[in-house]
């Protein structure tokens, strides 16, 4: 164990309205060490990294670089102290070349008032940084022409060119294939021998096993344990990630209220569906009437793509769905809606609602024709229907003529639900149904889901919230890299088991 700690973080706390993201977290890393940071979605990894990048300021705690306490007020402070952060969304300018990206913001200039670029010096600097990574990319290549893996290497080279001694990589392999992943791991090993301290955040425990000297596990914003080299084993890490006290008031769903509602026959079958994102991985699942099937997995595991392929938003490459024995292929959301298959999308603002439109207009949009005669909307019928749907879900608003932009997240989600409830759904797909929604509205949304199931609908619920998965689902399918890695019955379903399958 080395003693020259280049970065030491102690007792860092950060709270956002309504949630404690970090609660007294500590970690440290030495020069020439690779420290992996792992944890579930929402464990606080991203918040911690943003604090180290100077994006967020902690509410409490201390950060030391080279033994000196530092304050990170802005990303430029982090850069100056030699902290380089490689974000998941690669921050490169596609229309500039590699050298221009590596020198972005620190362009080398010829002297004189015209501030002309010294391209030769910039190229040389870029080439030197890339050489440290052992990769051969010509400095004048347009970044837009590079692969994802190469672009990532460019961002790492940029950090090195800015004299980074502490390199933080946030989910660096989430969009890389196996070959590129191995190449990246080799680059990291090389950097380690050059004395760079690396903080490696990943969901993928196989990589963590392969590369990390130590592992810090975060859980619910707290340190959940540290494993030294040699002690890093996937089982142990998973247990540390999910081990938790039972949430107070967390009620697991009792068996279906009406046993006859949950028939044993599958009514909705997803048959070898292949999505645009994972075109070579067929997914098959089946749902029973009155059942809530949870779909768990890490971000990027292909769950949203599956949901959107089922509903015709992004038509699948191949495969089909069967509803009550009828084979269906949807080329548009309209086609799915006409069959009673509805999606409550993940991104409410982008895909769910029209912000400036009223509650009424948002609720009635898919069923507008039902409230029209000869193409002309009957305003009274439309308003009555919207009001009924909004009151039924207890949407809190002064009137249905209020723009939805003025509502809270929970009430906005209720507006999306209200849209479908009056249309006698047969299958409803919820994608992250309670993200960004407060506890009270959350419980109401679960009630709606249970009510729908009790009325005989089949429910597919994609969620990254493991407690939600455990509380609400009758069965749980777990996905990893576009595949279904396991299906767990209620009895067999534990957080630990789900996590093992999710990182498989």
């Amino acid at each position, binding site marked *: 164990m080395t003693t020259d700690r280049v970065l030491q973080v102690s007792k860092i706390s950060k709270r956002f309205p309504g949630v404690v993201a970090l609660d007294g977290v500590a970690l440290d890393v030495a020069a020439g060490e690779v420290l992996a940071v792992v944890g579930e979605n929402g464990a606080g990894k991203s918040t911690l990294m943003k604090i180290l990048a100077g994006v967020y300021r902690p509410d409490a705690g201390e950060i030391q670089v080279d033994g000196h306490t530092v304050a990170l007020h802005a990303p430029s402070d982090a850069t100056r102290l030699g902290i380089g952060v490689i974000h998941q969304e690669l921050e490169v300018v596609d229309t500039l070349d590699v050298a221009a990206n590596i020198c972005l913001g620190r362009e080398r200039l010829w002297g004189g008032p015209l501030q002309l670029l010294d391209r030769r010096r910039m190229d040389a600097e870029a080439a030197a940084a890339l050489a440290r990574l052992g990769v051969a990319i010509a400095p004048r290549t347009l970044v837009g022409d590079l692969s994802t893996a190469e672009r990532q290497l460019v961002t790492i080279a940029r950090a090195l060119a800015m004299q980074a001694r502490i390199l933080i990589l946030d989910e660096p392999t989430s969009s890389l294939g196996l070959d590129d992943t191995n190449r990246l791991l080799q680059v990291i090993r090389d950097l380690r021998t050059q004395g760079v301290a690396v903080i490696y955040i990943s969901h993928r425990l196989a990589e963590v096993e392969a590369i990390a000297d130590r592992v810090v596990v975060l859980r619910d914003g707290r340190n959940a344990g540290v494993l030294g080299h040699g002690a890093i084993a996937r089982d142990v890490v998973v247990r540390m990630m999910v081990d938790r006290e039972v949430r107070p008031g967390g009620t697991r769903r009792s068996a279906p209220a009406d046993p006859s509602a949950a028939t044993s026959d599958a009514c909705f079958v997803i048959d070898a569906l292949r999505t645009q994102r994972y075109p070579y991985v067929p997914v098959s699942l089946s749902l029973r009437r009155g059942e809530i099937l949870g779909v768990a997995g890490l971000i990027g595991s292909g769950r949203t793509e599956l949901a959107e392929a089922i509903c015709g938003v992004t038509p699948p490459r191949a495969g089909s769905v069967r509803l009550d024995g009828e084979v269906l292929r949807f080329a548009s*959301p309209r086609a799915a809606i006409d069959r009673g298959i509805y999606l409550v999308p993940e991104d409410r603002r*982008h895909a769910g609602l029209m912000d400036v439109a009223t509650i009424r207009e948002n609720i009635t949009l*898919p069923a507008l024709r039902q409230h029209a005669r000869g193409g002309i909307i009957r305003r009274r019928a439309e308003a009555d229907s919207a009001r009924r749907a909004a009151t039924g879900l207890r949407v809190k608003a002064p009137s249905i003529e209020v723009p939805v932009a003025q509502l809270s997240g929970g009430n906005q989600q209720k507006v999306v639900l209200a849209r479908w409830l009056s249309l006698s759904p047969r299958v409803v797909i919820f994608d992250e149904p309670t993200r960004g929604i407060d506890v009270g509205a959350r419980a109401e949304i679960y009630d709606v889901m249970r009510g729908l199931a009790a009325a005989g609908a089949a429910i597919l619920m994609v969620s990254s919230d493991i407690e939600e998965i455990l509380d609400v689902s009758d069965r749980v399918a777990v996905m990893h890299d576009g595949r279904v890695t396991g299906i767990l019955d209620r009895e067999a379903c534990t957080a630990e088991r789900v996590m093992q399958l999710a990182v498989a």
Partner: protein
Amino acid sequence: MSRKELSVLGLLVALCAIVAFQSPQFLSAGNIQNMARLIGTYGIFSIGVGMVIITGGIDLSIGSVCALLGVLLSMMLVEWRWPAAVAVPAVIVLGAVLGAAHGLLITRLRLQPFIVTLCGLLLYRGIARYIAADVTKGFGAATGFEWVRSLASGSLAGVPMPFVLLLAIGAAAAVLLHQSVYGRYLFAVGRNAEAARYAGVNTRAVTAGAYVLSGLLTGISAILIAFYTNSISPSSHGNFYELYAIAAAVVGGCSLRGGEGSVVGIILGAALLQVIRNLVNLMDIPSSLDFAVMGAVILIGAIADELVRSRAAGRGGA
């Protein structure tokens, strides 16, 4: 009426009052009739362009379409001796077909509306000049199709026919835009096309439909304009009409980002532009300043509108 419509109406009334005070001729029957005729003619295609703008698109091809259709109408009636009952629908349908072509290129090939209709602007102008051999076309004495001419230059109970047509088309457009399922879809696409698609709206058909309507209404306007001028010079006929239409729509409350606008607002915007042109004539402002005055008035109106809005927002926030 919305706040925006009221503010355009206010500006319109204020301008009329100023001009009437400065030049008594403004209120003469002849002047008002002529102005109403122009408002009707320009207002009809402005409504079409307004609908396109509500989807978040733009239509730059109006002026050239007017030229092409005007040239064709003259050739059909005068040179080819087509019956008016065939030529008039043919011109309107052709306008709709050109709009449909724009709509398909935009929704199927995902080309940008600006590019598609800019190319239309260039293309149709060229075709108009070519088929007319750059010779100015007209209708002579309109023997045999006087009824068509009367649509442009006639009157109904003293109200010029183009204005009557504008009121009829405007009423139909208002029902379509503000009361029908299609109109609601049009706004939905302009506000958030992705969310509209998730809610089952066929966004491509809705968007393409707006361009068809724009072409159709331009076809109707083209007939009125051709007979109003009775002299169709292929190289200059209809020049800048697309800008009149866009200005009318935007002045009348359509947002170029889409999702906002009303038929009443567009008609008020079209009226405002014609009053400004009339003002330049009547107040002895050199006619070379025509566009400059129009630009200045619209700009001042936009600045005043923004100041009022930000002050109102400031009060609301405080």
